[in-house]
């Protein structure tokens, strides 16, 4: 797989960034999620409007490595807010960072589309409460735009 050099400066310092959004469970939960804790920030709950971000700390960055997919994302820590807008329906939700993730490097180059509107690379994961504000949970993965509120 071809991997490009990360952008410099980080693209999200300049403007909104487009990428893929998925959802994950955290906090007290049922099923395979029952072993999931409250995330890197210690506050994550599936029912709250929260998200995971790939660069919350050095340790987080060393796991997620979006730079290996050619994406540089700036450091943003617990509680920082993003607006996530679906590129499919246009709905948006403002959430705050509660965990480290997604593991961008393991899905490098992946692309999601709605018709001819596409976005590449997993840049953000929402809690079920947040994701279901902009898309059905059964879609699993969507292209989105990430900006600051």
């Amino acid at each position, binding site marked *: 797989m071809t991997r490009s050099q990360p952008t410099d400066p980080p693209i999200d310092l300049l403007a909104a960034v487009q990428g893929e959004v998925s*959802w*994950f469970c955290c906090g007290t939960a049922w099923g395979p999620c029952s072993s999931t804790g409250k995330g890197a920030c210690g506050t994550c709950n599936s029912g709250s409007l929260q998200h995971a971000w790939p660069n919350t700390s050095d340790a987080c960055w060393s796991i997620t490595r979006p730079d290996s997919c050619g994406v540089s994302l700036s450091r943003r820590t617990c509680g920082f807010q993003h607006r996530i807008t679906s590129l499919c329906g246009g709905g*948006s939700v403002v959430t705050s960072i509660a965990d480290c993730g997604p593991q961008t490097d393991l*899905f490098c180059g*992946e692309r999601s589309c*709605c018709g001819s509107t596409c976005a590449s690379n997993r840049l953000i994961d929402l809690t079920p409460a947040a994701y*279901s504000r902009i898309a059905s949970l059964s879609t699993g993965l969507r292209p989105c735009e990430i900006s600051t509120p």
Partner: protein
Amino acid sequence: MTSRRQLLKSALLGGGAGVVAATALGSLGPEAAFGAAAPDVAPGAPDPDFAEGRIRSVKENTLLVLGSNMVFHRIRIVDGTSLWKLGPTTFDQAKPGDGLYARGVRMPDGVLAAEAVWLNIVNIKGHVRNITAERIHLDHKGQQVLCHRVPGKSVAIYSDAPPSGDLSLLRVGQHVQVMGAWRPDTNEVDIATVFSAH
């Protein structure tokens, strides 16, 4: 324009639980419905229009659900509620013991009038440890999850390619996302969609 949320709320406040016309609610596409304006909730805060937990009992058109955080929810199903259990399903498929996520409109009496209910839905990422024609052994955060292929329902999405019923391109060692329906009280999942980067 009357929103889906307004229709749900007015129907229930009028005492007409279960009388919301599906045709009225069905005028919005799924993405538009989920993109519809919802009340402002502070980022990071619990969303009052969302619920999660496991069904304790079913009483008429109401699911009695105990949240994992021990909060009790009453979730009202109306004619326009969409239900999912490995795919679109009907109310009679909601069983005690099922896990769920639900989104709707919280009524003054605390009932959640449901726009959508997802039964047993999971969306997990992991490494493929083994794969056969019938199942994928997934390592999810150090735990093995047995993912079953369901003929006619399970599909794979290889990056931006259209969904395919052919799961044979998946490989051991690969990282994938499995969206599917949990089999309650097991470590097993029926596959709806496997997302693969390539």
